[in-house]
């Protein structure tokens, strides 16, 4: 990530629902090829922030660009250059592996030739060549998650948004999943990931920690740990969340 090209720029981004401010004037930049961890307790505003960046929700105020496009006016362009995997599982259970791949590749406008080429490549990489015509529901959760990630980047997006991608998965599969993320980052893809697991936060290049709609800390895991005099990201997180509770 020795690269200073900003791919996401956010300035004072705010979203209100009635009187409640879900995201309160947050500002940050994400650089190309970076793995950016977006942390926060439930209800801290992570999902709202992601939704604004990927064009599912209009911001109340503030500025944001994703891949050089404005989130207010150019959400259609943004959609073409990002991949997204949500915390709820998104492959279709009653479709086979191959059908899921060609469906998602198809809605991003890939041609038949590209689709079959990508499908072969992807199945080979995940060692699923023999399961191509099996229904998704017959796969273990870990495999589904890996497949969902591969499908989310099948159209070659420059930025990938992952909203709690590893929820409910065992540690070994999580580790394998992160290998896929690293590989994508090596290919110059920017990864924007939210997670509940603090050990995963350590895998990120930089993390931001959101508390009550605001970004309380943003730095590399190493810097954050030394700043808050902690051994683990878990301690950093608890300190920040507690500090805010005492204030409140």
């Amino acid at each position: 990530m020795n690269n200073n090209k900003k791919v996401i720029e956010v300035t004072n981004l705010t979203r209100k629902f009635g009187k409640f401010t879900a995201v309160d004037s947050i500002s940050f930049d994400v650089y190309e090829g970076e793995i950016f961890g977006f942390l926060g307790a439930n209800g801290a505003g992570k999902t709202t922030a992601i939704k604004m960046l990927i064009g599912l929700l209009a911001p109340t105020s503030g500025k944001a660009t994703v891949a050089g496009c404005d989130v207010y006016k150019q959400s259609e362009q943004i959609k073409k250059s990002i991949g997204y995997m949500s915390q709820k599982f998104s492959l279709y259970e009653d479709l086979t592996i191959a059908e899921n791949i060609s469906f998602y590749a198809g809605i991003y406008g890939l041609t038949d030739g590209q689709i079959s080429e990508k499908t072969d490549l992807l199945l080979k990489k995940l060692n699923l060549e023999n399961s191509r015509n099996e229904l998704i529901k017959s796969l273990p959760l870990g495999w589904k998650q890996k497949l969902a990630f591969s499908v989310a980047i099948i159209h070659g997006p420059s930025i990938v948004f992952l909203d709690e991608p590893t929820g409910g998965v065992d540690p070994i599969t999580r580790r394998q999943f992160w290998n896929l993320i690293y590989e994508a980052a090596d290919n110059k893809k920017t990864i924007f990931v939210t997670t509940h697991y603090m050990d995963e936060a350590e895998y990120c290049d930089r993390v931001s920690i959101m508390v009550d709609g605001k970004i309380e800390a943003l730095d590399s895991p190493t810097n954050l740990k030394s700043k808050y005099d902690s051994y683990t990201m878990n301690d950093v997180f608890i300190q920040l969340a507690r500090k805010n509770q005492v204030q409140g």
Partner: protein
Amino acid sequence: MRTFANFILKEIYHITRDWRSLLVLICIPVIQLFLFGYAIRTELNEAEIGIIDRSKDYITQEITNKLISSGYFKLNAYVENEKQIEHLFKNGTVKEVIIFEPHFATKLEKEGKASVMLIADASNPNIATLVTSYTSSIIRTYQLELNSKSIKANTIIIPEVKMLFNPELKSVFMFVPGLIALILMLVSALMTSITITREKEMGSMEVLLVSPLKPQMIVIGKVVPYVVISFFNSMTVLALSILIFRIPFEGSFLLFTLESILFIITALSLGILISTIANSQLVAMIMSLGGLLMPSVLLSGFIYPVENMPLILQWLSYLIPAKWFLIILKGIMLKGLGIEHLWKETLILMGMAIFFLAVSTRKLKIRLE
């Protein structure tokens, strides 16, 4: 366009993989048709009767023959005395007992009148009314025949009731148009609202919305297969009712098709509207069944005539798309009416379609962006 075809293909996979639901979807209309056609009848068909004939002359014999040859009645037994009547009714085999007084023919010839008593099992009031009115109507007809034959003309005027368009008062004629409306409503509104909320529930809707697909495209893609299914269903019901129930089809088939498409669009927009409000399949189902189907069945005039309802319900019925569609269908099928007579109802339906379509696409945008 390729993207769109891809989307439809995926929807077809969903539908065909779940072959149980597909079977239900295709069979339900047929089952309903046979249920409404055979089980729920408001006309008489070989109702069993008992006769106490104390006269046993040629006139009572002729009346009995007339009753039985009408096809509405079947002679269960000649009963000897009145004590047996209660027993017969309790068994439930006999719906009505007819008693001719002694010396029936002679009385009729000499005094100009004779009496016949009709006793009906009124534990089912509807059938009792039907049975007695059919019987008295047959006797009245016979009386007319006698009068015309006799030398001295009888001056009693008996009103002749003639049933137009459905001369045999076959209830299946009334049910088929209603059934078509109901099926279109069921499949179009219920199934689309369920299939769209399923994507929401699974979280795949978000992924679709983040893709370059336009929200309208997603909805249209999901809805098209169900339009095809519901149209297929209405054609099956129509074909079966013409072939098996001999329901007449007087009007233009083209007009029927166009009006059906108009109604399908109305039902679909209602389904989409529901799916923008409901967040789970269960809620969508309850809303479509309770909010759309029940009013459509009860207030459209499908089973119960709207004219007999309290004024408030009559006003409410004007808001039910199925009511207008039913008027149009009955007009086309039974009366052979063309658009020149049905333009008012068509216009109302069209207005509703445009209104619901506008509201649902607006709602869709608010929800998604």
